[in-house]
């Protein structure tokens, strides 16, 4: 009984350790002073008003959402296609292909950032929407490939043969049988792709321009120049947005799984 109590205490401690740094910005964002003092002396929503009233913040938010949505589409399509190839192709060098597609997860972000920056300078992609989408897609791909590959490995390929025998072309069979059955993997990949892009700082810092900044870049710039609690308001909204997305997705996946 005592051991159980200790275990609970230990786990709670770890939980707090993991979550507290993220949650601490929530009270900070409601401070009434123009400083990041914790705990705040008084409360107000002025920093939220500031966030939504400032065109610079709003344009950064707009860019982030736009980039993240485009990355979600591009990375999900490419990642799903890549996962199909990786699970089904019978060619040499498959392991190498898989390794290189998953590399962005392992290669240090700053290394990737420098390389991307050098290439983008030459191609004049720095500070462009296309540049952001391309750079973030590279980072998001592994997060699509991994869950979709897992789903495809659990997929019974005889179902595609069955669809073919019943008159479905390969594309129709994929669309009407394979895709619906691996949809949870694809959805989870899409979600991670969105969050990966929306949160990305390191590469974005290199390829940003004063005219095109994502929200995390703007936040970083803001915290280095002034200690304005608007950044806490922005952070709080990012937390709420990503948490909501993940919770909704988890809920839907759980419901689907229970339905089966």
């Amino acid at each position, binding site marked *: 009984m005592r051991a159980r109590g200790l275990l609970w205490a230990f786990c709670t401690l770890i939980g707090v350790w993991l979550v507290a740094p993220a949650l601490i910005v929530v009270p900070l964002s409601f401070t009434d002073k123009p400083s990041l003092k914790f705990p705040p002396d008084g409360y107000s929503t002025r920093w939220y008003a500031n966030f939504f009233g400032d065109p610079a913040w709003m344009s950064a938010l707009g860019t982030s959402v736009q980039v993240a949505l485009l990355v979600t589409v591009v990375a999900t399509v490419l990642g799903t296609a890549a996962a199909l190839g990786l699970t089904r192709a019978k060619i040499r060098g498959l392991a190498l292909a898989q390794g290189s597609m998953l590399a962005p997860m392992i290669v240090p972000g700053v290394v990737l950032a420098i390389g991307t920056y050098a290439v983008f300078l030459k191609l004049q992609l720095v500070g462009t929407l296309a540049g952001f989408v391309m750079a973030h897609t590279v980072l998001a791909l592994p997060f699509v490939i991994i869950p979709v590959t897992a789903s495809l490995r659990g997929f019974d390929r005889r179902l595609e043969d069955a669809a*073919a025998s*019943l008159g*479905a072309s390969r594309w129709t069979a994929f669309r009407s049988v394979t895709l619906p059955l691996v949809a949870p993997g694809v959805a989870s990949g899409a979600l991670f792709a969105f969050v990966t892009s929306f949160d990305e700082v390191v590469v974005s810092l290199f390829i940003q321009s004063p005219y095109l900044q994502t929200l995390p870049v703007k936040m970083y710039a803001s915290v280095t120049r002034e200690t304005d609690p608007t950044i806490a308001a922005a952070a709080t909204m990012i937390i709420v947005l990503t948490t909501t997305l993940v919770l909704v997705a988890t809920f839907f996946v759980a419901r689907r799984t229970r339905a089966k």
Partner: protein
Amino acid sequence: MPSSIQLTGLTKTYADFVAVDDVSLAIEPGEFMTLLGPSGSGKTTTLNIIAGFVRQTSGELTVDGASIGATPPHKRDMGMVFQHYALFPHMTVAENIAYPLKQRKVPKARRAELVAAAMETVHLGDFGHRYPRELSGGQQQRVAVARAIVYNPRVLLMDEPLGALDKKLRDWLQLEIKRIHAELGTTFVYVTHDQDEALVLSDRIAVFNKGRIEQVGPAAELYERPRTLFVAKFLGESTVLRGPVDGQGLGACARLLRVPGSIEGRDGALVVRPERLAVRKQGHEAESGWNALPATVTGEIYLGSSRKLELKLPDGSPALAREQAGGLSEARVGDEVTLTWRVADSVLLPDESDAEAVLT
């Protein structure tokens, strides 16, 4: 109008082995043809070539005289029932059965009619709104059959469709498949490793071994007049006596046994089916046209309508006799007896020692 299928010199080789080796087979319109053989004998690969899932290395495949060897599976207009049903888990029973109709752009109202009719044919009650996972194995199997017949394909292929079911259900569904075949009149190609299933269902059986067809014919012909030792041993039980053959007969157990026909200069195998062996009292003299061998009864299996006697011959090899209830001998385990059979009821085949290796 049911279709005919013609396989000519069909061969499929993989990197290091030959899965199907020069298979030729003519399947008649409306025929129930069973491809029978042990696992790895090439029967399933042959079926997959007919369905179009596997591309033959060489050889010709025609349906109603038209070559379809290069046609993709979805344009072959064949129905297929898979071993594990391969029902679409995200669709209801009705949606599963309607799937091939949707691919053929059948109007919605007509679709519903055809689905209902197909469910009627397989005696699948009111399960249209259920999902496959909510059905038993036998019911799923019926859905698979309904889905494969609903668009009236010119050929129905079945890959061990009863393999995953228990014995009792299997016996019942065999009769159902036979009934459906009679009702539809479609050409059926059925793959199984179960000889009893093949006997119950088939018009003709093609026995596969090591990628080749050993013999094709109606069940009775394969059973009564097997052309190879493999066929004799794979289809039904038998006692096999091996030895050198000359003009006089076959030498086995220090005796010269009379044989039907002859094979020159080779070792022979004399095959006798259990119901053709009579168990007599020790010392019984063979009548003319009969053979006799002494034997010891080593086991007895009571089967209700019959009993099986396991025996040991003088050279130590086993023999098997079956007696119908009402005609039982008095032999008991441990008795010394004489086994007799009519020469005309035995079959003389060339001895292939490798037939044994495949079966054990």
